[in-house]
């Protein structure tokens, strides 16, 4: 059973930590956005776009969690008998997106919140505000890739 427990722990970390990161990031942007909306309600669409950006880490985490659950048979089909080594490997594979998702979500939130300040003054610069935030997300995407590659590489 140890193998399954470790693998589930990995799934929980991937979903949980990156979810926290996204929640914090989205929250940060929401605070700034609400301030801008109080002055100019017409910017709702633009600010919502920026607020959605730090939300992706949570989705990447969920994605990793789903892949783990699918690989070990929690979803669809019975539980696979995992050795402790296999379980531990899956736990390790979940770490990139868990850790990077948590931190990059927060920092992307900060970049996007500053972007909100940017479009409050110069709405035509939305594209640049988005790019600044997306620069942060690159590392979450890379972490997701690492996690997925490891998961597909582990034989169960």
């Amino acid at each position: 059973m140890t193998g399954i427990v470790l693998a589930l722990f990995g799934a929980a970390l991937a979903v949980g930590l990156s979810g926290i990161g996204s929640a914090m990031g989205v929250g940060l942007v929401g605070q700034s956005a609400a301030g801008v909306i109080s002055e100019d309600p017409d910017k709702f669409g633009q600010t919502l776009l920026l607020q959605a950006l730090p939300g992706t880490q949570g989705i990447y985490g969920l994605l990793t969690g789903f892949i783990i659950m699918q690989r070990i048979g929690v979803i669809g089909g019975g539980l696979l008998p995992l050795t402790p080594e296999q379980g531990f490997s899956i736990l390790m594979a979940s770490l990139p997106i868990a850790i990077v998702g948590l931190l990059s979500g927060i920092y992307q939130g900060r970049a996007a919140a500053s972007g909100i300040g940017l479009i409050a003054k110069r709405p035509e610069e939305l594209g640049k505000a988005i790019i600044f935030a997306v620069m942060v997300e690159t590392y979450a995407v890379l972490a997701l890739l690492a996690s997925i590659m490891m998961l597909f590489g582990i034989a169960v």
Partner: protein
Amino acid sequence: MPIVDMKKIFLFSHQQEKDTVINILRDIGVVELVDIKESNEWEEMKSLLVPEWSADAVSFYESLLGEVRYCLDFLQRHFPLQKNFVQQFAGAKINLTPAQYEDYISRKEEIKAVYQSCRKMDEKLTNLRNEETRCHNLLQSLAPWAGFSLPLEKVENTLRIQMQLFTVATDELPSLQKSLTEISPDHYLEVVSSDKELTYFLLISLSEEAGVVREALKESGATEISFPGIAGTAAQAISMLKEKLENIQHERAELLKKVEDLINYRPHLMAYYDFLEDERDKKEAINKLAGTKTSFMLEGWIPLPLLSSLEKVLSEKTETAFLLSRDPKAEEKAPVLLQNGGAADAFEVVTKLYSTPSRREIDPTPLMAPFFFVFFGLCLTDAGYGILLSLLAIIIFRKIKLAGMGKQLIKLLFLGGISSFIMGVLMGGWFGDLVKLKPLWFNPLDDPMRMLIVCFVLGFIQIFFGMGVRAYQDIKAGRILDAVFDQGLWFILLIGLISLAFPQFSAAGKWLAICGAIGLILTQGRSQKNIFRKFFSGLVSLYNITGYLSDVLSYSRLLALGLATGVIASAINTMGGLLAGSIVGVIIMIILLIGGHFFNLIIGTLGAYVHTSRLQYIEFFGKFFEGGGKAFQPFCKTTKYVDIEEREA
């Protein structure tokens, strides 16, 4: 030629025809006005011409605009215009025929009256709100005394006795009662009401003991309460206040009804607002002119293809207007207008969000468009989502009148949907795994490594293409050495390094890479003077290899995002499949599938758009494109609230 050639124009005319000329320019909307005082020739013309001045007229319109804006805000506050989700992004305008528009803007007096009544009603409503707050506060402080039977005005000090109302913290009450019994045995204390925190009581004591009683009260933190100006018992006062509040509600409802009558004027106000803004813009335009007593001169930019039509209109509609034009001088920063034919038009929005190209560069839009198309599709890789996205784009395009960048964006999403459909068919994604169709090529879920390599290859192609464009620009500008040393040698080195990965080419690759590297070491320091500096700069430049490496690795996001869309879609299907047992389960499953896939489509599209844009901006544009041009902003009629249907020509 995607960047349209510009001509500088100088327009001379008689002062009497100034308004006519301004109106013509505004109606055809193809000329960007230049403030003549900032132009290069101003120094020479200063002695002959006087700048036109219309700041008074501008501020006149500004103040009228302020009034109309106030009315619109006031109406919006009480009877907000609802916008749906798409309108939040695209904005909502009302449609008017030219006749309606003329009619609406002619009613100056009515609009003045509307403004006056808005002001009046706003004031009344504010007063009512203040009164209401006061009543509410009073009600709240009276509520604990509701059970007190003595009329409140009777609670007063006489010669012999002190009679007062107090509140005290409920915890403190026993100790207060104890100390009062000690110092003033004859006091009378009646608790009127009490809750967890505070106790409300009446205290009667002899006047001669007033000092010590006050001390005891102070010690326990009791506060005196008084209700000045209230007659009768608290219960009576409360019912009176409630009545008053009801009256206030009535009054407000009646006022709001009157405000509601004003709503009919909202279209008028909106039209008038746009009219005023238009007038103000025209007056502001006059500020940019210069003239003599009888003539004036106007300076501006016009796209070359439109010059003849302007000449034609001017000669038809005016008697004195005279047009001169010339090519932009080298030191002048002419505005830039992009014009891409066909499908490439939609991708202009991507370029513009980065930067308008400068006049010396080529427009990167058509170069970037095919890459954007393919990458966007790879980020979704789902045929079902592709169809949905294209359909959504068509619906939005039909339903909402969009112009400029909004229109381009919707077209871009439509094309993205098509691309996603193609990729989905190639790689077997139909709403995740909802419809199991065999992929035409291969499924990235089965062989992610192969897909990763495909992404890297695409990345290499785009990066090499970007370097090629840079080399082309250098050669065209006569910097052939730069093209050979900076781009050519990197080509050799990178191709050499890639060939190392294939056993059959590895020997040739090794020598290619070494040649390239040596070439770079020898040439990259060529701007340095000292021979050692030359060598070291060349050596250090090899470090840029990490830049190329990270550029290529960056394309791995295509795999990650494509997998993400597919796997989340499959997860939604799996969750739905778990529910399908009973009839209720099937209903929930359908709701879950529709909601889930729609959510995934929105998130996936957002991700595809921003990440594909990023690949263009950082990895591709970074190789050759600088931007920094000034976008062409013609003097034209812009409206905020109303759309006037085209007049018959």
